[in-house]
């Protein structure tokens, strides 16, 4: 934190760039469904005071998909907020990478930034890499990030089975449980029976 020198993050070619002015708000979501190999590349420039950005993303990979998710959020002005949550499930021999950078520029006091990326890996041949990165060059900021790669909760699975819910159905309920924070309202989830 605060090590090295502040440099304006580069805008990678091919990214979707969003510049938010004073008080502007942006809510984004994305869903990557089974069978889709896809790059998500988002660059958000919080350029005006009090701008707010939120992102909810989910991915479901069941075969040999390649998914790259990259988000760069640049807090340039004071009192901006950003929150990012990306959850996904990788199975088969899919390959998923998440890179999320939050850069808080000098003078962007009162920044409130949160970033989380949680991943479930169902098969030994699926690969998930997650690289959260925080660079903070301002004082008086609230930043949090969390990244996990794991399996479905075995205790919860047993709890459901002990109530008579068959294993496959219990696994699907657990996947929905895991994804629920990133499923937008009115979004129709595809069948999870590929897993």
């Amino acid at each position, binding site marked *: 934190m605060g090590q090295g020198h502040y440099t304006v993050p580069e805008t990678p070619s091919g990214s979707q760039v969003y510049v938010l002015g004073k008080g502007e708000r942006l809510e984004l979501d994305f869903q990557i469904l089974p069978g889709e190999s896809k790059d998500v590349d988002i660059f958000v420039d919080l350029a005006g005071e009090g701008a707010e950005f939120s992102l909810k993303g989910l991915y479901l990979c069941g075969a040999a998909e390649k998914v790259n998710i990259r988000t760069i959020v640049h807090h340039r002005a004071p009192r901006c907020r950003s929150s990012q949550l990306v959850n996904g499930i990788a199975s088969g021999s899919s390959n998923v990478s998440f890179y999320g950078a939050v850069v808080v520029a000098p003078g962007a006091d009162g920044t409130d930034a949160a970033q989380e990326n949680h991943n479930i890996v169902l098969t030994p041949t699926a690969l998930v890499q997650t690289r959260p990165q925080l660079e903070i060059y301002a004082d008086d900021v609230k930043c949090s990030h969390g990244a996990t790669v794991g399996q479905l909760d075995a205790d919860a699975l*047993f709890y*459901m089975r*002990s109530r*008579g*819910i068959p294993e496959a*159905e219990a696994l699907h309920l657990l996947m929905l449980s895991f994804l*629920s924070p990133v499923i937008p309202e009115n979004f129709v989830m595809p069948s999870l029976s590929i897993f």
Partner: protein
Amino acid sequence: MGNLLEIKGLHARVGDKEILKGVDLCLPKGEVHAVMGPNGAGKSTLNAVLTGRPDYEVTAGSILFDGKNLLEMSPEERSHAGIFLSFQYPVEIPGVSITAFMKAAVNAHRKAAGLPEMKGAEFMKLLREKMAFVKMKPEFAKREVNVGFSGGEKKRNEIFQMAMLEPTLSILDETDSGLDVDALKIVADGVNALRSPEKSSIIITHYQKLLEYVRPDRVHVLKDGRIVASGGPELIEAIENKGFEQF
């Protein structure tokens, strides 16, 4: 009157550690038995083996449930056959409501019994009736399973699920730990209400509190992986007075 459950020479281990070293226990239909024992006696392993928890390996012995080989059945098959475990530490399932959870459970039971799915209105009526029975507030139907519940609310939710599924064998694992008297009475009422000539219960505990409200027909003392004493309810008092060292 036959036995609902017959455990013979049961040995079980977790990893390399042998925990059950020859448990024999018969539970006749219609009876409530208590299994008491100090920490580390094998109480949790016994209920894990009865309910089919993965990671517990039975190395010798047999368990018959209603004449069937229990050890060949999956956890869900055991549930369908009528076994219910009230968990010591009920698990939180974020994003899944009590309604969705119980609907999946009830309909899985009905499917296993060759019955059609229960429709929404009929299911909600049953759900509300059983929630009222354990004095759970109706808004809990929409709550995520055990998420943010107090200790008492979690145990109440276990008894609610038990009432929904109407098991023939209910196993209560340390259900009385961490319960206040009101919650304890609800648990006891739930167990007592399910008492019938066909249904049996095992209460696994190292306290006697719950046993003041649910009088067991027999009490077994589990120590170092074996049943070292069995008797009537008078054993509870002997344990209260002299502890487990006497066995």
